[in-house]
């Protein structure tokens, strides 16, 4: 347990020291949401219907653009090799990175969501439902993207490969994530999309971290 807490503390320490990542992602998120209403339409109904999908897509792009920073340095400075020699369980290394990334995303979304509601004219209940879907959807999303990075860490260029690996798995999360708000606004029960998202959550966490941990361990031996 003390290894898990040491790894977690290490990840959070690096996050707090490297504030550039937080502010870059916040700026990317903020600018995207600020510019889209100008580019799309000033029609309030149209903005309201596009809004949740847009927020989900920007969330995916933000996770994709920030994931490499969690691994590149560890691979470059041979920290992964250090973990290997010390017999550190790579499943713990993987989980601490997911937790740190999730906290980073949640802290950004907490700032962004009120602004998003304002720009896209969403009512409070829609924002609450969207927040709940993001809370349930971002952990498997982050896990899948980290999994892809773990698989491709030993290759030189990971960008396109990561997209190809994770795209088929991201789409169901995106559909049901956006679907929660659509279901609410059309007066349908929310049970169905949330049950599907919970199922994806459980499925991803049952299998993916173990394979990712194995891939990380192998990367340490390159």
């Amino acid at each position: 347990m003390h290894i898990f807490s040491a790894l977690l503390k290490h990840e959070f320490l690096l996050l707090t020291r490297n504030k550039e990542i937080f502010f870059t992602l916040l700026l990317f998120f903020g600018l995207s949401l600020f510019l889209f209403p100008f580019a799309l339409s000033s029609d309030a109904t149209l903005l309201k219907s596009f809004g949740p999908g847009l927020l989900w897509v920007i969330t995916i792009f933000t996770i994709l653009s920030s994931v490499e920073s969690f691994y590149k340095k560890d691979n470059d400075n041979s920290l992964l090799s250090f973990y290997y020699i010390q017999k550190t369980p790579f499943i713990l290394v993987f989980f601490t990175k997911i937790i740190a990334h999730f906290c980073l995303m949640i802290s950004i979304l907490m700032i962004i969501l009120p602004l998003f509601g304002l720009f896209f004219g969403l009512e409070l209940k829609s924002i609450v439902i969207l927040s709940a879907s993001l809370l349930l959807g971002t952990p498997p999303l982050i896990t899948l993207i980290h999994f892809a990075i773990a698989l491709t860490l030993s290759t030189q260029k990971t960008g396109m490969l990561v997209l190809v690996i994770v795209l088929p798995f991201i789409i169901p999360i995106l559909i049901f994530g956006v679907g929660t708000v659509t279901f609410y606004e059309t007066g349908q029960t929310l049970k169905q999309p949330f049950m599907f998202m919970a199922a994806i959550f459980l499925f991803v966490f049952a299998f993916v971290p173990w394979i990712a941990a194995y891939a990380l361990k192998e990367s340490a031996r390159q």
Partner: protein
Amino acid sequence: MLDIKNLCFFRGMQRILRNISFTLNKGEALLIKGANGSGKTTLLKLIAGLLEHEDGTIHWQGHRVKEHNVHYFGHSLPVDIELTGYEMLHFWLKISNHRFKKKQIEEHLSAFKINANDFIRTYSQGQKKRLFLAYYLNSSHRPIWIMDEIFTNLDQEASDILKNAIMKHLEAGGVALLSTHEMIGLEGCRELVL
């Protein structure tokens, strides 16, 4: 006894190491020499288990070498430049299951003239090496010490501390493998030229 027999390693189609064999008895050290690209780092990584060998055997006391047999000082150091010297050393020690009090860690750092609260990004290459050395020599319960270019960038004082530590380790029945381009003056050290 560390027993290496007919060790071969290929990278793609290129043969990096060919039929390397040697034996190190307890208390012996081996200095691995060779030109750049001759495979010194590869050989050390193979023994540490950081690379998989195609042919040959690497045995310690008759069994395959395991990670917990090896104490590895690699060519690139696992440092995070955003941390302070204290934070980094504290992290390494925790990960390797060593529990030290804050005061003890600070003493280890000051023994290597490292300011505990300075960020690693301000360190020179030699200071980074001394920081890892502070970890390396205070967590040294494993029998096979593997040190890749460990003396490079170290000043005389740190080199002397390291040499004394290696001699003590050998006296206690451990073995040491070192790669270097420099004359290090370690007594009774065998040589292997790649």
